């Protein structure tokens, strides 16, 4: 690789790369994010390479393993350029047909195309409703880029923003631009990034540090990971620009150990950037030096909190520290430190390239730009979506997400992860906006959006989050450590059918105390899931407590599985699938569940044939049933 010594070198390299590439040459891109990995995308990519080699077409067709395309529900996603033909649920067996029909005969393989509700086939990726309603700026380049190949990023104009910042702008001007754009932290808090940068820049001590927070701990959220996996250079470029504006020469990328692919791709990106001279001393001949170290996190939710994360980089236990003085003044090793999350950094190159005015045109009054959400749970189109701020939750759930599967009824959407809250049907028209979501009793959070249907128990959901938080509490503050434990005990009692009158009030009282008396955001926001479920679904709590009944049919101690002998067709599938052998055949060839042995895992209900529907779930205890 040539070392780039000036902005002209970079531009020349870009032109060289583009000159070697024919925009009309067919390119098969195979989504290789973790979601598709689980579907076996490796096999699909391999099959394409083999098939193309077999037909001796390697000179005419490119195969590229790209970052996440976002439509995880329909993995493995394959998109063929330049026509942008999108095939879904591709298996290695489909590959030879695609090569023959699409790549050679230029026809589509209809069975692999997206089919909308009216039975219409959609060819182009961008026309699929899931993509059509999105505004994919930050996440959109993922599908063009092989994350292990810096040239792909450079070909798309990558590092152009860095070059612009270094040669055409002073650090102050860069800072001004980001402030002007009103970029707010995408990690959850929504603190204006420009203000954070400025106070780090103005802090008197040296050296200063910059950090990428990729310790995405929210269960059910994986957008930061996919961004770092799919387009690591955009994050790196943002970090470099930020470091230049702040006056820092040393940065860290804190990635969870549980994200092996993100770890690997960011390592490769750093190495390649170093080879090109985009990292290290005298970057692009500008005199600006910058080095990056990748730090692996070892799996602790609380370590995503800024001061805890810094403590972990220093080699200590990742516990939060009091922040009487902001980390931007006294952070890592007590030096001024600017920490932003992956998505925030990835926004920076766009702001520098296109300007604050362009950025400000997207979004609402106080929330500018786009936000990536991981839309998961009881939803038809699970995946990663990037939407402009101001879009309503309803549009996300129904237009992009395609609504609730199996004709079930929508119950709630949860945002903000364990720190956030649930929003019921009546609040679906709330726009995605930092302040509006907070006012509605939830929060933007880092981007987890979990959809729940009528079969989701809200008490169980609150219990789930409280258990998670009680486990992840570092234990430093007594109110958080002991308070959460007590809340969990009460919630366990309620879901076990042992709730008492007054429990709800006690939960509320404890919540208030934990919020007031905890040091870090984990404790301060920990009661949110409980409080918001009480606020919107108090009736479910009351049903558990007063009638020992779980209306959604989730809480194990309050439900019973039962085989209706009139409907049973005697196929025996339930008995074969019962892990505890609790199901046996009766004399009249139907099946029966021995309640003493039943662990209520729900296997029998899942396998019972559609035509019989003999297994039923009763939302009451067997004894009373």
């Amino acid at each position, binding site marked *: 690789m040539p070392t780039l010594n000036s902005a002209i070198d970079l531009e020349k390299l870009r032109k060289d790369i583009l000159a070697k590439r024919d925009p009309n040459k067919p390119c098969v891109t195979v989504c290789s994010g973790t979601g598709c990995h*689980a579907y076996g995308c490796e096999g699909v990519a391999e099959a394409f390479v083999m098939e193309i080699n077999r037909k001796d077409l390697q000179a005419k067709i490119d195969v590229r393993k790209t970052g996440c395309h976002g439509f995880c529900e329909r993995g493995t996603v394959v998109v063929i350029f330049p026509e942008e033909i999108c095939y879904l649920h591709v298996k290695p067996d489909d590959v030879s047909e695609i090569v023959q029909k699409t790549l050679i005969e230029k026809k589509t393989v209809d069975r692999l195309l997206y089919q909308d509700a009216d039975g219409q086939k959609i060819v182009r990726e961008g026309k699929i409703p899931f993509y059509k309603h999105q505004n994919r700026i930050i996440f959109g380049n993922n599908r063009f880029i092989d994350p292990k190949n810096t040239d792909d990023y450079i070909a798309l104009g990558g590092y152009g923003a860095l070059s612009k910042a270094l040669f055409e702008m002073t650090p102050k001007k860069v800072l001004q631009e980001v402030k002007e754009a009103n970029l707010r932290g995408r990690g959850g808090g929504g603190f204006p990034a420009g203000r954070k940068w400025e106070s780090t820049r103005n802090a008197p001590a040296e050296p200063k540090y910059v950090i990428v927070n990729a310790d995405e701990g929210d269960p059910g959220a994986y957008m930061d990971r996919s961004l770092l996996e799919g387009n690591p250079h955009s994050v790196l470029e943002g970090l470099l620009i930020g470091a230049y504006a702040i006056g820092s020469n040393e940065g860290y990328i804190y990635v969870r150990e549980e994200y092996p692919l993100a770890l690997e791709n960011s390592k490769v990106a750093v190495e390649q950037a170093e080879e090109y001279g985009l990292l290290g001393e005298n970057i692009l001949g500008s005199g600006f030096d910058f080095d990056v170290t990748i730090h692996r996190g070892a799996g602790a939710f609380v370590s995503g909190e800024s001061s805890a994360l810094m403590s972990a980089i220093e080699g200590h*236990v990742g516990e939060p520290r009091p922040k009487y003085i902001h980390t931007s003044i006294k952070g890592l090793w007590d030096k001024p430190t600017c920490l932003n999350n992956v998505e925030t950094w990835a926004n920076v190159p766009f702001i520098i390239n296109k300007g604050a005015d362009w950025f400000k045109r997207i979004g609402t009054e106080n929330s500018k730009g786009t936000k990536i959400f991981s839309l998961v749970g009881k939803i038809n189109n699970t995946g990663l979506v990037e939407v402009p701020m101001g879009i309503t939750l309803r549009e996300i759930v129904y237009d992009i997400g395609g609504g609730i599967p199996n004709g079930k009824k929508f119950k709630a959407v949860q945002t903000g992860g364990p720190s956030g809250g649930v929003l019921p049907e009546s609040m679906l028209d709330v726009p995605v906006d930092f302040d509006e979501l907070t006012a509605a009793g939830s929060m933007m959070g880092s981007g987890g959006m979990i959809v729940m249907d009528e079969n989701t128990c809200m008490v169980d959901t609150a219990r*789930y989050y409280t258990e998670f938080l009680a486990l992840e509490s570092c234990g430093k503050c007594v109110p958080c450590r002991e308070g959460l434990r007590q809340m969990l005990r009460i919630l366990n009692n309620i879901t076990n059918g042992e709730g008492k009158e007054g429990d709800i009030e006690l939960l509320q009282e404890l919540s208030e105390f934990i919020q007031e008396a905890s040091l870090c955001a984990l404790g301060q926001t920990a009661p949110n899931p409980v409080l918001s479920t009480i606020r919107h679904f108090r009736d479910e709590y009351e049903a558990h407590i007063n009638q020992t009944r779980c209306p959604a049919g989730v809480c194990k101690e309050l439900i019973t599985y039962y085989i209706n002998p009139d409907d049973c067709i005697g196929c025996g599938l339930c008995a074969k699938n019962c892990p505890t052998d609790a199901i046996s055949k009766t004399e009249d060839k139907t099946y029966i569940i021995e309640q003493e042995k039943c662990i209520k895992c729900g296997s029998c209900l899942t396998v019972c044939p559609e035509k019989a529907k003999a297994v039923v779930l009763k939302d009451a205890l067997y004894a009373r049933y």
Partner: protein
Amino acid sequence: MYAREQISSESGFQEPGIADVVVIDDEESMCEGCRQTLEAEGFRAATARDGTEGLKLVEQAHPKVVLVDLKMPGMSGMEVLAKISEFDPSIVSIVITGYGSIDSAVETMKIGASDFLTKPFAPERLLESVKRGIELGRPAKEPEVTERAAPPLEAPEKALLDKQNVVLKGLEVLGQYYSLGFKERQFFDELRSLESEAKYHADRLGQVKEKGQAVLDIVGDLRLVDGIIQKYAYKKNALIQILLDIQMEFNWLPRHCLEWVSTRLNIPHTSIYTIANFYEALSLEPRGAHLIQICTGTACHVRGAAGLVDRVSSILGIEPGQTDSEQLFTLETVHCLGCCALGPVMVVDGEYYSSPSTKQIQEIAASYKVSREKGENYAHVELSH
């Protein structure tokens, strides 16, 4: 000058070459305290107040043990130590150090000091250390060892000899590799603790190993750990990264490895265990050959992850966090694997299974059992996703 006066006037002997212990320290009270303590026990002690004087005294008195303070004006304790060992390597040196300089104490151990005392220390500690030093210097130890090996080889003796051989071999390896310059006795001490570690290690793994082999294995393990620590240039702040690498290497954090990290980086055990307990990716228990992870992220939770956990638990007979008695499977729940579209999802050694049925889980478990019997450690079941 006045150091020599001290020899003649205070220690009460004139002839050179007959002091047992020389104390070199710039603090008068320290010198005096040590002298009185040692003399009360019947040792002949002499004192000096700086390095230059101390060395002259050592040359004259030819003591068995020298106590050296590290921080002194003029010649530093380290220099003094080096000069003493140049003069006569059989002289045993013990380092006296103020609290903050444990790091340098380790350094001095490397260049040949046999022990170090942290100020302030109790008289008993001083005497114990000096007595051990005199023992160490005495060349009478070796014949004793060979004598024990010589008698006719009855069963217990043979076992003893075997053990000794193993220990010696381990010592050789340790000596070659670490070349820390410990005196032999300390190697024995080290090995003794290693041996108890080995037994612990073997018991924990449920495999009763030949003790000797276990010692050698442990030496091998420590070598690996040393390589890891070296990779991070002995930086204390790399502790978490080092532990992650050890976890990756051994699949858990064996106790002897943590002990070694503690020694090498000079970090207290408590700090290491705090970190090992705090982070989910670090395990203080041995784990099975195959890792079964069930995602309990919110998306999987609302899609019934709890039921999946129950099914897998009841089929394997282990609860989340546990390893089965054959060390074949470890069952774990994780918060979000980021493949929410497949939820509830189970991952076995990196293979993803979307909402597997009871039958499928049984098949998977059985296939791994079969592959272990065949001696393979990899199995894959083709399942439709």
